[in-house]
């Protein structure tokens, strides 16, 4: 399975943010999406998750045959966690399991899901409004994993986690990547190099894959050049 983007264009007013994006993202890989501030990383994610309409081009899933992307195919984790604060964490999970019943690939119980992201037992029946930023982020991540979309868009998802939670999350992404296409947007090059299988740079409205180098410093240099390329 792969996510194919063809000639995707998006402008705001008359400023072209995505000029002509062409790319193929393969299942089983974590892609590190790098770009300077304002390069259009969030715009690209917003286009793929259909939060905004694209001007032209197309994107679809290709697996033996071409398939239009449905809401169930996309999970989008924002850098700022958004959870319904009037629910307890357990109720939030129950709701998500209910509405995703058809797509669930495992029969995990709610507590098993909590265990997966290390939410303590005494916190599971608390209102989400009383959760810390990092815990809310974990919950947001978890419901996107429960929904089991083919494509996971992660916009700076680890910034609010402590170092231990960051390592747990990284491990979790590595564990689930075989069934997903994971696109991970970040400003931290080290994190991208550590976690991601491929590095993709968005510069001047165009996506470009950076071929890996054996020497890490040379690879970093290539990424830097791609980021500042005029």
């Amino acid at each position, binding site marked *: 399975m792969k996510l194919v983007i063809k000639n995707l264009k998006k402008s705001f007013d008359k400023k072209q943010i995505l000029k002509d994006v062409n790319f193929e993202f393969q299942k089983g890989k974590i892609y590190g999406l790098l770009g300077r501030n304002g390069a259009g990383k969030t715009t690209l994610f917003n286009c793929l998750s259909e939060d905004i309409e694209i001007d032209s081009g197309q994107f679809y899933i290709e697996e033996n045959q071409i398939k239009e992307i449905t*809401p169930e195919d996309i999970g989008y984790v924002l850098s700022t966690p958004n*959870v319904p604060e*009037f629910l307890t964490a357990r*109720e939030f999970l129950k709701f998500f399991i209910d*509405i995703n019943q058809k797509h669930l690939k495992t029969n995990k119980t709610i507590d098993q899901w909590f265990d997966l992201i290390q939410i303590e037992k005494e916190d599971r*029946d608390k209102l989400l409004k009383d959760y810390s930023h990092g815990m809310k982020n974990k919950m947001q991540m978890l419901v996107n994993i429960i929904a089991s979309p083919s494509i996971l868009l992660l916009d700076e998802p680890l910034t609010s986690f402590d170092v231990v939670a960051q390592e747990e999350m990284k491990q979790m992404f590595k564990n689930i990547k075989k069934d997903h296409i994971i696109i991970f947007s970040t400003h931290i090059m080290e994190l991208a190099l550590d976690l991601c299988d491929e590095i993709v740079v968005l510069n001047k409205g165009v996506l470009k894959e950076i071929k890996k180098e054996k020497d890490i410093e040379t690879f970093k240099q290539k990424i830097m050049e791609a980021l500042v390329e005029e």
Partner: protein
Amino acid sequence: MLKTFLISYKLKNAYRVNSIIYSLKQLPIIKKILPVSLYQNKALKIIGNIISIIIEILTIFLGKFLYIFFCIVAMFPVFKINTPNLFIHIFLFLTIIGAIMNTYMFNPTKDKYYAMIIMKMDAKKYTLSNYLYSMLKTLIGFMPFTIIFGLMSKLPLWITIIMPVFVVMAKISYSAYTLIYFQKHKKAKSENNLNKITWLIVGILLLLAYGLPYINITINPIIFIICFIITLILGIYGIKIIKNFSKYRQIYKQILTYENVYVTENNKSTKKIKENAEKHIKLDKNFISNKKGFAYFHELFVKRHAQILTAAVKKQAIVIIIIFFLSIIFISKNKEFAGTINGLLLIYLPYFLFIMYMLNRGTTITEAMFMNCDHSMLTYRIYRTPKVILGLFKQRLKTLITLNLIPATLIGFTLSFLLYISGGTNEPLNYIILFISIISMSIFFSVHYLVMYYLLQPYNANTEMKSSTYSLVQGLTYFVCYFFIDKKLSTFYFGLAITFFCITYSIISLYLAYKKAPKTFKLRV
């Protein structure tokens, strides 16, 4: 100091011009015509500057004119006396209130926030130069109108000339007192956060301003002159204190907080609404639901927001019941009253369009839905599937209609019953029409607010209202309902027409919601 003033004035003017251009960009059709490089457009900047100067002149003169006209001159017919003393009397007490509530110096405004907090301008130079400008504006702005309206009230010219000086000196005296208070207690007083005692003093002064003339007591010019001399002396001393005060930065650090500047400027700000909505979430650990999916989700929303959803409805119901019983008592005791009520019920049904509009909880409930629920849930793609959107829409519609039907049913029943006991009607259908039309209006407003919310979803991810169309629809709704307030129309025909309209509107808008909401119900980017 002049240099500081000019820099601050240019800064204020720059964002005022940008605000004017931004407002132009929000207008539905115009925004499409205007170019992106709008803020660089020189011609538009010049127009913006001209508008900005006009606004500045208007703030100098128009506000003062409206103040003297509406708060003093227009009040004259209320009182039996109409002597020169009345003008002086009201002016004196309102000036003292103004000195406390409208200091300029302790008003947390955006221009002060930008200049002193963000741009780190010299607080003392900024304050003194702008304060001087503000007092000059007060003096010049008041002068023509105290002279014109004072002479019209047969006051001597010299008194009308010293009146604006009195206003300025009163303001300076109170500001100086506030600075002394800060030096002693290290606490700054923002004029937007007055304490209870100050409000009490303001209330008493207001009572003295309008209450005393009502019982034919007014102060005479001699008392005014004594007050003027005292204020003049205090004011001159106050100028010295203001000039020598050195801790303006510390005082403004307390006053110019983000909340003071942005939240109190508009109490209906979304931040406030969100905080308010969050406050009402209550966890009931014993709550068990057998429902699933969005029905389960909605049931929890209703349960956790019981206070915000039902508190106002309960209060409305109590008030309606009280009015109902009081009306029964008056009707049974007073035949004339009964006749009047009977007549009103047969021609004043249009008035109830406005009442039903005011009672409807649609705006508050949709706000709570967004702030506490959709704001976060709309970021999940799965929540935006047609199945979930429409499933939840149905649940919400049921809740909104049910809640609003509680006061509506009581009103409908009350009106029909009052019509019966106040003398009845030759047309028995009037009883049914009264009841049905009130119920229809209630359902109409419930459908209207929810459909508008789903079709125009006006908020963005930062919970800011971003739809001028939504504001326009809300304004129009108010305008139309207000328009019907004084219309006398036969209950029979108006009732039939409004019922037909409400049913037709509801069917069409529900159809539109079902067709369009899966595409329109999303966070604004």
